[in-house]
């Protein structure tokens, strides 16, 4: 029974269904590996103690001949800002240090309905605000490919745990690149769906108009399988749409796979570091043989995307995080002898640096006299980008760029300069502002550090995007031996 933890979703579900190994054997091997390996990378905040019991239940179902779900026995790690009933959900914040949600997020319910096992909760930048997972009050997560380097963020635990083979797949949340950036830095596949495709019910809000929950896996096929389960209309999230009416009506069928017109986003490719730039072009050479048509294309408004993104995201954050008062849950601080406002201000001082900064910036851009200068203009830029992208998608099926313009960098390198940190998101925020789907897939390494390719499609074109990503993934065929970490 060697190395079950290396298997992909299909191999795990088939192996368990066909009796090659049991769900219990698979989960025990994963838990053993987490115990040995995670002290090096720190990707987990909480481990689900009931995982083995749930595995036994799946084994029982199978041996008694009952039907099991399409994800039976796979082990999914969950970013710790997604509510899991009975399992702590901290958002990597002191302000929610002991919070146990009384309900499951819709995505969790859907995974459980298909017999997936939730293995634990994964590290992130506090309240998903950050690009390196260095802003967690549970300690930073390290890059499994080189422990001195950052793993990206904010869903750093979700990407690092998948790369370190501590779960079959994971869920992250993507507000401005938080799934794709760590996926790129950890050489795994990360996907941000069209806004409204996946329910946000149970996701602790940071910036509601931009964020989506998205899967991370070691292959595009794994990501597809998770998407099939978690997407779809949810009465608890009124921004979700009925996928049956939208996804399947696109004018694409798989025979057209080799007939795609791809736009290379000039501004985003030219803005990248030399090593990233070269890697993108050598990847393009590799999948050139599939007969795709390439053309350089331009998105002029991309220059203003990051300013628009940080204005909207911080504005929404300042409002969303107003609810954390340490009264109903939080850390121990006796409220006796405090007046209401003083108590709030004192306890809220315990947010981490980055969260406090963003709340203040958000209050600034919304404050009287500045609202028109920042917030309103940011919304107009968002509109402009959406229109410009719409026009591009009339001409191109897909748009490609580097996911992140730089290689993973050393831990601590950018932590003191928030603006430098924000610039990491410059390529990824476009998809959030426009509400379109975007994926990051691994395309190579430089000095042992991973590089990711971002592919974007028009809204609800997930099928096309994921199918073509699979073709590109196969043609690039990078070394898939993951770091051993023992």
């Amino acid at each position, binding site marked *: 029974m060697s190395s079950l933890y290396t298997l992909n979703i299909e191999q795990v579900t088939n192996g368990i269904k066909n009796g090659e190994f049991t769900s219990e054997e698979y989960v025990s091997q994963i838990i053993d590996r987490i115990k040995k390996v995670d002290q090096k990378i720190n990707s987990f905040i909480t481990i689900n103690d009931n995982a083995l019991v749930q595995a036994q239940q799946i084994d029982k179902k199978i041996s008694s001949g009952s039907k099991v779900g399409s994800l039976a026995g796979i082990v999914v790690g969950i970013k710790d800002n997604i509510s899991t009933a009975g399992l702590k959900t901290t958002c990597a914040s002191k302000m929610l240090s002991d*919070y146990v949600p*009384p309900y499951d997020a819709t995505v969790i319910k859907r995974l459980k309905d298909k017999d997936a096992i939730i293995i634990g909760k994964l590290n992130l930048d506090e309240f998903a605000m950050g690009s390196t997972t260095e802003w967690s009050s549970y300690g930073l997560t390290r890059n499994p490919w080189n422990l001195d380097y950052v793993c990206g963020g904010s869903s750093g635990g979700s990407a690092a745990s998948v790369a370190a083979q501590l779960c079959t797949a994971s869920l992250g949340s993507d507000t401005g690149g938080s799934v794709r950036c760590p996926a790129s830095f950890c050489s795994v596949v990360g996907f941000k769906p069209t806004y409204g495709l996946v329910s946000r019910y149970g996701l602790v809000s940071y910036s509601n108009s931009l964020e989506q929950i998205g899967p991370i896996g070691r292959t595009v096929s794994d990501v597809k399988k998770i998407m099939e389960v978690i997407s779809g209309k949810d009465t608890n999230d009124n921004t979700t749409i009925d996928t049956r009416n939208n996804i399947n009506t696109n004018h694409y069928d798989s025979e057209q796979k080799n007939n795609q017109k791809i736009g290379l986003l000039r501004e985003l490719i030219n803005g990248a570091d030399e090593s990233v730039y070269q890697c993108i072009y050598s990847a393009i050479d590799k999948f050139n043989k599939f007969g795709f048509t390439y053309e350089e294309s331009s998105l002029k408004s991309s220059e203003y995307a990051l300013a*628009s993104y940080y204005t909207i995201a911080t504005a929404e954050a300042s409002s969303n995080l107003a609810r954390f008062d340490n009264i*109903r849950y939080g850390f*121990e601080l006796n409220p006796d002898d405090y007046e209401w406002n003083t108590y709030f201000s004192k306890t809220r001082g315990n947010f981490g*640096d980055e969260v406090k*900064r963003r709340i203040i910036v958000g209050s*600034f851009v919304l404050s009287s006299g500045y609202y028109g200068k920042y917030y309103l203009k940011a919304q107009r830029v968002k509109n402009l980008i*959406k229109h410009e992208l719409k026009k591009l998608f009339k001409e191109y099926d897909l748009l490609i760029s580097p996911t992140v313009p730089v290689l993973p960098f050393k831990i601590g390198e950018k932590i003191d300069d928030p603006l430098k940190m*924000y610039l990491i998101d410059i390529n990824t925020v476009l998809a959030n502002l426009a509400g379109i789907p975007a994926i990051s897939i691994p395309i190579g390494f430089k000095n042992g550090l991973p590089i990711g390719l971002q592919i974007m499609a028009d809204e609800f074109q997930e099928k096309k995007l994921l199918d073509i990503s699979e073709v590109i993934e196969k043609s690039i065929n990078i070394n898939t031996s993951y770091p051993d970490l023992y």
Partner: protein
Amino acid sequence: MVTKDQLKHLSKLSKIDLTENEFETYTKQIEKIIKYLDKLDEVSFEENKPSVLVSFKKLSELREDMVIEPTLNIDQIAKNLKDKFVRGPVMS
């Protein structure tokens, strides 16, 4: 230009206590961030379109307005409460 006084006012409005040290560092950092956001001033909007995107959802897609029985029981919620009570500061 972002000043320390402005930050003091904003931290009071957002109910976040900051130390003197934090005020010093944040003022410098936020000044840089806001300067970057000033990029928005350079954008020329060709047409004067409405600023907020209209949702693709139709009113008819809203759910029925009916009472749904709560599915949570107090024991689950109380797990987060200290001694099963919500304890707050005094109202002055």
